[in-house]
């Protein structure tokens, strides 16, 4: 096998791990970074996105629209959740953890009761391509592109739109924003909705590649948390580099020692990073910049 193939396989693996981490974490990062809320029901929002995507696609909608529907549905569910529960718990982060965990429990089992123990899959589109004797799923490359696109989109949303400005103002100096006539409650609700929609988007994007079951959220949640914690509060300076670092760590460990070490390595990484950088990678970058 020549060097180029080697390099490509390795980059493909890193890209694959990176896109999984970014997509599963970005919704959580928005909610945690902007609002300081730890949403343990994040995985169930991903599941919601996947279910809606699978259902609409099977009903005849083209896949991209199905994914969009999944994201919107999860976003709507997120807004409702914010209105009914999260809103009453601002400033009580530990209680939020407990409450969202309760939601997660009820949502998983409720889905099982309502929709059965599994949903038929929709199949991965776009086929495969070959490089140097290996074949790869084309759709996986689409996922990598989607991860980068989501990051870019978020950057624009927070830096070039009125909502972004208001959101950042609200989060940084809430009383000031309020004094300036910003409806901070709406901003919080929208931010949470955005985070939920991103979760739904992740679910929708991965729906064609996975078994669609009520418990599928749990396969995302740990990775999402690790990425957000390692990244710190800032999505662009934190989540993205964290996903890159962790993706590389995981790809290396998995190649070298198998999946178990890939998994445990992630957990050890999070412990070490918190110890060394209590505010995550973004904390480090921001400090250096200041």
């Amino acid at each position: 096998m020549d060097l180029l193939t080697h390099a490509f396989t390795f980059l493909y693996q890193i890209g694959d791990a990176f896109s999984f981490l970014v997509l599963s974490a970005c919704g959580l990062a928005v909610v945690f970074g902007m609002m300081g809320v730890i949403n343990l029901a994040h995985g169930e929002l991903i599941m919601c996105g996947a279910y809606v995507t699978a259902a609409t696609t099977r009903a005849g909608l083209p896949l991209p629209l199905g994914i969009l529907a999944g994201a919107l549905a999860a976003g709507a569910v997120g807004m409702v959740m914010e209105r009914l529960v999260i809103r009453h718990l601002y400033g009580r982060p530990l209680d939020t953890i407990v409450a969202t965990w309760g939601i997660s429990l009820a949502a998983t089992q409720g889905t099982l009761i309502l929709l059965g123990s599994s949903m038929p899959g929709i199949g991965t589109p776009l086929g495969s391509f070959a490089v140097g004797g290996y074949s790869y799923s084309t759709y996986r490359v689409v996922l990598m592109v989607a991860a980068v696109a989501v990051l870019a989109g978020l950057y624009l949303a927070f830096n070039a739109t009125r909502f972004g400005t208001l959101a950042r103002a609200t989060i940084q100096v809430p009383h000031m924003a309020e004094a300036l006539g910003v409806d901070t409650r709406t901003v919080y609700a929208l931010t949470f909705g955005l985070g939920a929609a991103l979760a739904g988007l992740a679910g929708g994007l991965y729906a064609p590649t996975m078994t669609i079951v009520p418990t599928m959220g749990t396969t995302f949640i740990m990775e999402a948390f690790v990425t957000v914690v390692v990244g710190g509060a800032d999505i662009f300076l934190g989540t993205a580099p964290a996903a890159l670092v962790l993706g590389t760590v995981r790809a290396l460990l998995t190649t070298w020692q198998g999946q178990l070490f890939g998994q445990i390595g992630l957990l050890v990484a999070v412990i070490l990073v918190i110890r060394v950088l209590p505010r995550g990678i973004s904390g480090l970058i921001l400090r250096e910049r200041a």
Partner: protein
Amino acid sequence: MPRTPRGSRLSALAAALLLSTPLAAPAARAADPIKLGVLEDQSGDFALATIGKVHGIQLAADEINAAGGIAGRKLELVIYDTQSDNTRYQEFMRRVLQRDKVNAVFAGFSSASREAYRPIVDQLDGFAFYNNQYEGGVCDGHMVITGAVPEQQFSTLIPWMMEKFGKRVYTIAADYNFGQISAEWVRNIVKENGGEMVGEEFIPLGVSQFSQTIQNIQKAKPDILMTLLVGTAQASYYEQAAAANLKIPMGSSVNIGQGYEHKRFQPPSLANMYVTTNYIEEVDSPSSKAFLAKWKAKFPNEPYVNQEAENSYLAVYLYKQMVERANGSTKRADLRKVIAAGDVCVDAPEGKVCIDPKSQHASHTISLAKVDEKHAISFPKTWDNIQPYWLGKAGCDLTQKDPMAQYTPSNPPKP
């Protein structure tokens, strides 16, 4: 290790307390129903494969009751949902044995759940049926195991596949007892048949992303891929492998027959998979068709009748025969005497099934199921009367001695 409290003031007090409560059960009269405890996961991770097990037991019980019961006694089911949670098995196993005082228990999907309740069954001298395909090796006089074990599934599947596709074998397996022990079986049988293991990879439970694994397999270029993946997360492998255009013939002991992946996944992700199973609803025989018709009449919404559902169904009939031959006794000792005779057999939907007296495991008719591009099933081969031979050969003989332990090929019974 002392098994009963003896000679002390406190334990005497305890015994007195126990006796003073009105729970010394009156001797069973002929008209009393026979109670069967059913502990299966109707919610949580495993519910997908196990709801059918409860239905199988209900179907058998209804049929038996309609035909007059067992030795004139009706069957009564005591059903609990164990929520895919080991601690629930522990709690409810105590409950069915102590409170409900069932005569036998039908319990457990995952091996962990079985190991969780087994000490309690042993301690309280219960009698339990484990109706699940598993990694094998349980040598316990309190247990009857009706599910297929690796030697039954692999000694049939692997030689057949190696003959057809080639001798280079790659295994991916769930990284826990079932996967590791099954992989050990694959390794041994491949070697016995002159094949070569070109790779082995263990995947932690709950992993859902397989790009690296797919690449490793491509690199090793096997003729046969054994997929011993477990759980809904790991099932994502097939979709991802198909998307990466990995077209190696797959063999498995656990897919299709348990989680009916061919029904759940978009074709052709499972194309070219070969599975040995003692039953699936596609099995094309008159007894199977009749069974399926009865099932669909009672449970029209059943998504699939898998091998564990059939195991559970036939287990009730095995129990019926034991009790009838023990002249209506439900005592464990009496039933084990019947088992020791060596001819407890029933005509199950799959064919004839008998209990091996040494290991108290069941012999099976093993069908080789092939999945095609459209996910339709065909059966290129069927083996009759495949014995669960390993435990007996390795030295487990429950007619002589009851070690109440689980063994593995690398950790066999000590002579």
